[in-house]
């Protein structure tokens, strides 16, 4: 299995279009590259500062990677259902009640995504009048991440809404442990007896 295959979450398959799997994989890879990018730039920032020849533009590059990584992760987490939630009330419901709650929660997310697109776009246009130092790049280059994130969140939410209404939201699936937690082989054997 390739890295790209492994990066596409297998759960809630019935809510996903296969056509969007490559997009999920690409966004996951982008998350990794952006994280690697700003790790590298911060390291170079320390090194160049310590040798007395700081590259000031590194901080600008770092913040660009950082902001784009946040919005990319936010978008892909919608498809993977990885966002932090207070409850998962819908999982305890069945039938029409579940459909209503699932549709309502996604409608709220979609509403926020549309605000990201429109008001983020307005912010982006406004960003051409402010500049980042020292490169004097318009700050719009950072603000562009917001409407892009909005488009992706809206796309993934519509995908789930359409498939959920068509196929039903509920589907029995074995619980899957979080992929980011590694299995631990086990503690070293120790002798002992129960008291």
């Amino acid at each position, binding site marked *: 299995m390739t890295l790209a295959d492994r990066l596409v979450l297998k759960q809630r398959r019935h809510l996903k279009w296969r056509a969007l799997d490559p997009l999920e994989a690409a966004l996951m890879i982008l*998350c990794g590259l952006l994280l690697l990018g700003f790790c590298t730039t911060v390291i170079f920032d*320390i090194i160049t500062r310590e040798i007395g020849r700081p590259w000031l533009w590194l901080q600008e590059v770092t913040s660009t990677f950082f902001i784009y990584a946040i919005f990319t*992760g*936010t978008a892909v987490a919608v498809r993977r259902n990885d966002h*932090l*939630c207070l409850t998962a009330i819908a999982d305890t419901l069945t039938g029409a009640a579940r459909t209503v709650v699932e549709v309502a929660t996604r409608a709220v997310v979609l509403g926020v995504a549309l605000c990201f697109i429109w*008001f983020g776009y307005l912010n982006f246009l406004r960003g051409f009048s402010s500049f980042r130092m020292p490169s004097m790049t318009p700050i719009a280059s950072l603000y562009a991440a917001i409407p892009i994130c909005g488009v992706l969140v809206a796309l993934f939410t519509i995908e789930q809404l359409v498939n959920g209404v068509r196929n039903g939201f509920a589907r029995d699936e074995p619980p899957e442990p979080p992929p980011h937690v590694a299995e631990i082989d086990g503690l070293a054997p*120790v002798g002992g007896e*129960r008291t």
Partner: protein
Amino acid sequence: MSSTLIVLLMVFLFLFFGYLGVPVAFSLLAGTLIGAIFTDVSATAIVQKMFDGMDNEALLAIPFFLLVGELMSSANIVLRVANLSLRLVGHIRGGLSQVVTVFSMFFSEMSGSTTADVAVISRALGGPMKREGYSPPFIAAIIAAASTIAALVPPSITAVVYGAIGNVSIAGLFMAGVVPGLMIGIGLMIYCYIFGPAGMTRPRAPFRDVALAFRDASLPLMIPVILLGGIVTGFFTPTEAGVVAVAWIIVVVIPALKRGHIKLLPWDFCLAGLIFSLPLITIGAANAFGWLFAYLRGALMIAEWITGLAGDNPQLTMFLLVLLFTIIGDFIEPVPTIIIFMPLVNALTQAADINPVHMGVVLIATLAFGLITPPYGLVLLMASKFVGVRFSQALRAALPIYCVFLITIAFMIFFPKVVLWLPKQVLPESVGCFKNPSGAGYICPQ
């Protein structure tokens, strides 16, 4: 519509959407955007405030600390630390529950994330504890309680957020968190010794075994040394210390201890890149919510109420804030709580003349406590899920453990000198001390 009504509407919508199942970041933004309709604030300004909340250099530390935790658990290096903990305290009455606490004290110094802590400890020790006959509700309770130490001790992500948003020294918060973190750890060990299940009796590990386990774990144990050493000596900022720790794991620890894991590093980076964005977008959303909340004088209303009750008594002010944060922490996560209520906290800190680092560490401990209290005890919820037990059962088992947290928080309120002792020794300027202009040493506020 009056400001009070708009604030109430925002809070209601956030909680309603949140408990309906909408992700926290989107619930906060939905509440804020709807609230803004009734004010003269534009939605563009709200989106801008969300962006401003994330565009903060100090927050760069969060992905680095999460990546450290991810690499440590993914490469299975934490097992060495778990084995060291077993050799150190496995023979004490309570057995593996003592090991859970000590392991958490070690791992917290590497990851800084309570959720990473609970996931790793559940995986490492949940199974062995079940096999040794500990009751699953107790396992979930002790793992959850021990995991909250990560919110206090360096490199606590909660402290990074508090420092970045509240303009408080992050290094000072790190140092001030050590004493309460140790108090909770030792308190949990005492609790397990006296009230917990006896567990399996093990012989005390010979010194040679302890030394060998220590040698095995020495490379990962260098991570807290790098983090604290770099920050205390002033060589690194907390953010830079995080990236140096990442470089240490990738360049030294993994090649030395788990060479085969190198090919999986791209996978770790992709997952860590996703994981870190989740708290960060929540920070952005909470910043927008908190800004509108402050704009509508919501924070001021609560501040006036608390000042009216407490006057300028620092202990009473702190007690009322702890009470408020305990209630709020039962419903919301620590990060949004800190961001939304930071204007209120800053106002009260100044009004009652409290050291900001002292206030910060007390509130962080309170929010850590909120992670194991109902109805939204995130860490206890996660622990019960990983261990495979109902939340209500885990909650009943956790109730007696609450006394450890309540005693620690009360101690922190009434003995600020003890809490601030360590930062005063190693980073005096972080707690408001300044160099004596007419001699050696520092002059510190009383």
